[in-house]
């Protein structure tokens, strides 16, 4: 698999963005590889280390990599809140780690931990990402400071609602950050962002879009609709259909997001 920021840097260079789905079960992993392979478009699989066994996910991902050898896929662990957790995921073979917001709340106090995490990650070719909630504060030079002091590779901007009224502001912030730092930029799990806005963010310099809520909603809605059509007593093997449906919605959504995020397709 690829070092996570190698994928985001490539996306950056092409003014496109990689999609980064947070998976909700182990079976999603294969679909990530299938879609990445189909479009030759980068997919950064994200897991929260408190939801899954990190070794199991690493095993499945490494296994799928051998089948889909040309799929540009990276495996990233989120929710890292201490040095020991970082070491565990780095040693398990993850390609990127995302430092938990809790560690960033008191940045001054936790700076040494962030540096230690970055040191072990860099020595094993693993990318480090931190997220920033108050995006506006980055433009006064703090963005550069945070990146420099913490030795990080990627900044995730928690943008929230994105619309025609505020897109200009974010494009401006992204513009300044790109001049100040060499790190790649991503966004949080913003939902229902229109394709044209997403593309304009990608062109401005966002190179990783985290996704989850979109396909969660789509999946839950379609499950409920299917279920309502035929009540449980008549749907003996509903789970079979349900599993297929979940997989299909997930794959369709990845497909859709890839097309939204850029022009990578078949490149």
């Amino acid at each position, binding site marked *: 698999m690829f070092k996570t920021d190698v994928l985001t840097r490539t996306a950056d260079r092409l003014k496109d963005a990689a999609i980064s789905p947070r998976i*909700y*079960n*182990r*079976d999603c*992993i*294969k679909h990530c590889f299938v879609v990445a392979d189909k479009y030759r478009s980068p997919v950064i699989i994200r897991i929260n280390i408190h939801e899954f066994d990190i070794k*199991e996910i690493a*095993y*499945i991902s490494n*296994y799928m990599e051998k*089948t889909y050898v040309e799929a540009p896929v990276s495996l990233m662990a989120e929710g890292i809140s201490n040095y020991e957790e970082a070491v565990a995921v780095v040693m398990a073979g993850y390609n990127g780690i995302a430092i938990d917001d809790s560690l960033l709340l008191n940045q001054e106090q936790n700076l040494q931990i962030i540096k230690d995490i970055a040191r072990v990650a860099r020595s094993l070719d693993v990318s480090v990402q931190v997220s920033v909630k108050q995006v506006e504060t980055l433009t006064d030079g703090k963005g550069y400071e945070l990146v420099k002091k913490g030795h990080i590779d990627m900044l995730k901007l928690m943008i929230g609602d994105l619309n025609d009224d505020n897109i200009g502001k974010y494009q401006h912030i992204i513009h300044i950050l790109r001049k100040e730092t060499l790190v790649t930029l991503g966004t949080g799990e913003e939902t229902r962002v229109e394709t044209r806005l997403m593309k304009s963010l990608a062109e401005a310099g966002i190179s990783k879009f985290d996704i989850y809520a979109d396909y*969660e909603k789509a*999946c*839950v809605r379609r*499950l*409920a609709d299917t*279920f309502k059509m035929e*009540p*449980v007593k008549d*749907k*003996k*093997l*509903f*789970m*079979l259909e*349900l*599993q297929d449906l979940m*997989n299909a919605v997930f794959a369709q959504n990845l497909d859709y997001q890839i097309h939204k995020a850029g022009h990578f397709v078949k490149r």
Partner: protein
Amino acid sequence: MLQNMAVLTNKAKKEGFGIAAVCPMGIDQIAWSFEVAASMRSPLIICNNSSLSDYTIEEYGDMVSFWAGRYPEVPAALCLDHGENFEHAARGIKAGYTCVMVDKSMCSDDENIRAMKEVVKLAHASDVAVEAGLGGTSWRDPTPEDILAHLTKVDSFKRLVTETEVDAVAVFVGGSHGDNKKQGETTLHYDLVEALRDAAPAALVMHGSSGTGDDKLAKAAKCGISKFNVAGDLFMSSTKEYAAFVENDGADLKGCIQALEKGFKKRVAEYLNFLGSADRC
């Protein structure tokens, strides 16, 4: 670590209990099955029914091997379910399956024996068990008349096992594949089970256990069925939990998946209990 399935079924036959052979659709369900078996100290057989899963024979085999390694305390076997031919069996053996089923139950006895001899030769050379099918075992939704007409014949069973040395045979003793069974209405022929059990050393396997009724399956286990293939009952249980979740609060995907997991695990645990395999390891 995965074991030759015959090791598990021989113990079950000797001690008079049954082993649930669950048919997970994917990696999540494989993991759930192992978690339940470990917590109940029960042997476990995983069946790969390719019609249920998105994974290749090889992918599925490697995933199960990985989970068997995660739970070394669970005596486990991996069976390729309803393989169609020698080539399927060969792929399964190479992929690490510890039992391969080649289902020639719809063929004549002579054809079945000829096919199984070839498979047994390869499988036994690789320390892998072989399951054959005999009677109407692959039939879906048969009528009561069909069932009676296609019950496994003791003479055919004895000849198949003696001439081929298969380790297990999926027999047709009243239970059947299908979604149209009404809960508890299946008639199992226990006298036939006992006659088959005593006729030859192969383990007896029952396909289509779902919907038969727990008491009937428990009795069949005591009479001599060692392996019970089950899928529908697990899915149904998951679906029920999902339904309950949707009624209360169905807007959360993680909650949906947890409900499915709960239902699946609950039913697997019930199977391990009533088949008598819990606390056997």
